[in-house]
């Protein structure tokens, strides 16, 4: 029972730390205020190039591909240390490095690997993920974007949503329906889409918070050459699963910009003592969850450190965190009373705290939906970790075109 690094991990951490100390500050300087613009993306590409040059771009990949053939734990350590600096990282580069690269390596042809992997690791290519659709979220395999064969090309029509960085990405990971006459999982194909192709239109989605962190992407008769197909025709679901399996297990909560129990406790102390006590049982329960999540993550890291596969129960991290974030934020806004809804009436320090709770109130709601809604995760935990029966499915054996679809 030890929460410290193994000697090997500790050596690597020291190496990473000293490299970051020497390198990172320059890349953190004068970052553009607009964290979603082209300039910020360019800074992210610079940093990716720097990492690649030092062999930190793909820690787990073979050295022949520019990696260092190290364990997943080393990747975690690098990410932990990197997170100490306000660097231009995140989905901007991780969609390419973390999703596109392993997918292409697993299912791509030698030519595709040659063409895409290195440029992505070097930060030359930025990627976006074109999976979800307005009518296909939890039920991703119910997607409707059509892929029609036309000579050596495919013609794609449809609409995708929740596409982070689609407005700056060079390439997109796209799954579309190439055959609607077979059951839904069997008629999908997977493509790499050059985002500059005519017919690709990217629009920002306005969120309930008023911000726009995601896009929707309209595909109007977009032409993709068949050489940009990954995997066999009709086997797109298998490729899609590879991409999804690589979505990092994240328990979140490490961000200082989101509320935590400590921040609610700070707020609580502004109440008179008797009212403080009334909130204490509820807050303590959330605190026990927050602690539990932290140490659950330690247990996952231990598994990673040992090179073990994570079990399906790992998915509970996001489930618990998203609900905790919503509950904590809502509790904080209850404690703060009406004044808490108007941060500008408070001192600047308190206003910043309150703003955090507002963000958490919205972001908690988003997280409960994104990357596997609560209900989907419970199904997965029940079926995969506990081995309980799957739901009765009416859509498994029916041609997609015959499925009822509501409106």
């Amino acid at each position, binding site marked *: 029972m030890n929460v410290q690094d193994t000697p090997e991990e500790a050596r690597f951490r020291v190496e990473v730390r000293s490299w970051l100390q020497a390198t990172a500050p320059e890349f953190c300087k004068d970052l553009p205020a607009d964290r979603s613009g082209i300039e910020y993306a360019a800074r992210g590409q610079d940093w990716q190039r720097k990492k690649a040059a030092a062999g930190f771009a793909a820690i787990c990949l073979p050295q022949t591909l520019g990696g260092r053939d190290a364990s997943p734990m080393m990747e975690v350590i690098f990410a932990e240390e990197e997170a100490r600096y306000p660097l231009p990282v995140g989905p901007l580069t991780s969609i390419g490095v973390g999703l596109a690269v392993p997918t292409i390596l697993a299912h791509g042809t030698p030519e595709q690997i040659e063409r895409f992997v290195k440029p992505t690791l070097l930060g030359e290519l930025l990627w976006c993920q074109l999976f979800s659709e307005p009518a296909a*979220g939890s039920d991703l395999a119910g997607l409707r974007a059509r892929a029609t064969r036309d000579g050596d090309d495919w013609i794609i029509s449809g609409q995708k949503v*929740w596409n982070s960085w689609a407005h700056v990405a060079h390439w997109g990971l796209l799954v579309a329906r190439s055959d609607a006459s077979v059951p839904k999982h069997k008629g999908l194909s997977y493509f790499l889409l050059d985002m500059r192709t005519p017919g690709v239109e990217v629009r920002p989605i306005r969120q309930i918070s008023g911000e726009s962190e995601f896009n929707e992407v309209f595909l109007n008769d977009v032409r993709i050459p068949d050489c940009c197909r990954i995997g066999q025709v009709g086997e797109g679901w298998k490729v899609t699963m590879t991409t999804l399996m690589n979505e990092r297990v994240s328990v979140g909560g490490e961000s200082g910009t989101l509320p935590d129990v400590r921040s609610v406790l700070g707020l609580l102390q502004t109440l008179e003592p008797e009212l403080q006590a009334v909130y204490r049982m509820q807050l303590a329960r959330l605190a026990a969850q927050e602690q539990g999540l932290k140490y659950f993550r330690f247990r996952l890291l231990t598994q990673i450190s040992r090179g073990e596969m994570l079990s399906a129960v790992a998915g509970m991290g996001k489930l618990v965190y998203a609900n905790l974030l919503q509950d904590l934020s809502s509790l904080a806004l209850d404690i703060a009373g009406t004044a808490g809804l108007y941060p500008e*009436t408070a001192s600047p320090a308190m206003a910043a705290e309150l703003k955090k709770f*507002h963000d958490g109130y919205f972001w908690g*709601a988003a997280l409960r939906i994104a990357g596997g809604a609560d209900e989907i995760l419970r199904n997965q935990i029940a079926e995969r970790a506990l081995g309980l029966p799957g739901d009765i499915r*009416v859509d498994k054996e*029916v041609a997609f075109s015959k499925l009822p679809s509501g409106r």
Partner: protein
Amino acid sequence: MDFDFSDEQKMLRDEAHRFLGDVSSFASIRRHLETGSAFDRGLWARLGEMGWLGVAVAEEQGGLGFGPLELCVLNEELGRCLAPVPFFSTVCIAAEILKGCTGAAAARLLRRIVGGQAVVTLASAERSDWNFDIATRFAGGKVSGSKTLVADLPGADALIVTALDADKEPLLLLVDALANGVMRTALQGLDALRPQAHLVLDQVDADVLARGDEARQLLARVHEQAAIFAAFEQIGGAQGALDMIAAYGQQRYAFGRPIAGNQAVKHKLADMLVKIELARSNAYYGAWSLEAGPAERPVAAAAARLSAIEAFEFAAEENLHLHGGIGYTWEADCQFYYRRSRLLAVSLGNAAQWSQKLLAGYSRGI
């Protein structure tokens, strides 16, 4: 046993439901938000014409001569459609205070409210709210002080202001919102449909509406009443959220069938309905206590508030959640209930305060 609204009151509710369904939609709310105006003046005028602004005001004062139960009914429907009008501030609080005041100024202002010519709001919050632990002072006919959060202040024509005189005697004052020395600063908050503002009063002319124990008791009574009205507003909102997701859950298909066919979804909707019906039952008792007398009122108000807070919060959160990604977009309407449920959860005191009040009432042995 006739623990229900009367047929006339239900007719008023149905009428309100139809009328508001016609004139106030999420589309009209969005248009209103884009105008940046304090409230929907067109709709407000219509409410005046229909008599709603004086529904609980005596006929000799220009009203329809009904009572608080009619206000309950209207609050439920306004809560459901989130109509951007200062009904709660003006009709459920300010007019109820004015009804309890003697004197010509109060009567005049009440008539203007009923006629739709005056939006009036109570400015009382300083360190805390609904009490006279305040720094605002009245002397020589002038009032000075500042109030942190005043609902519907941006569009108000007149203000009822809590203050102390030189002897620290409580006062309820009437102030013209356009008078010299009145400064209003609009505030950005979670729910833009119910604008709040900061108020500074610098030597502003004011009339005394009530003073001393009378002022204190009047404020306390209106606070308790308002809690019960607010519970109806919350129940309306919760029911609106449930109706929205019940409809969506039937038409949204996943895995080849409506999502509402999944027990994970349908049991949650059943729980929403159960919470709403418990809250509604408590609110009915609150409504009854408005007419029946003050002994049961604190406990009735507290139980109604606690269960309405829980029902609305649950319905608003899970309505958004079960809509999936679309629910998180600006174009979906889930956000309006999500914001309003949080606002109403803390208006008039938060859950801890109402918990204390409820258990204190139990201990006293209601």
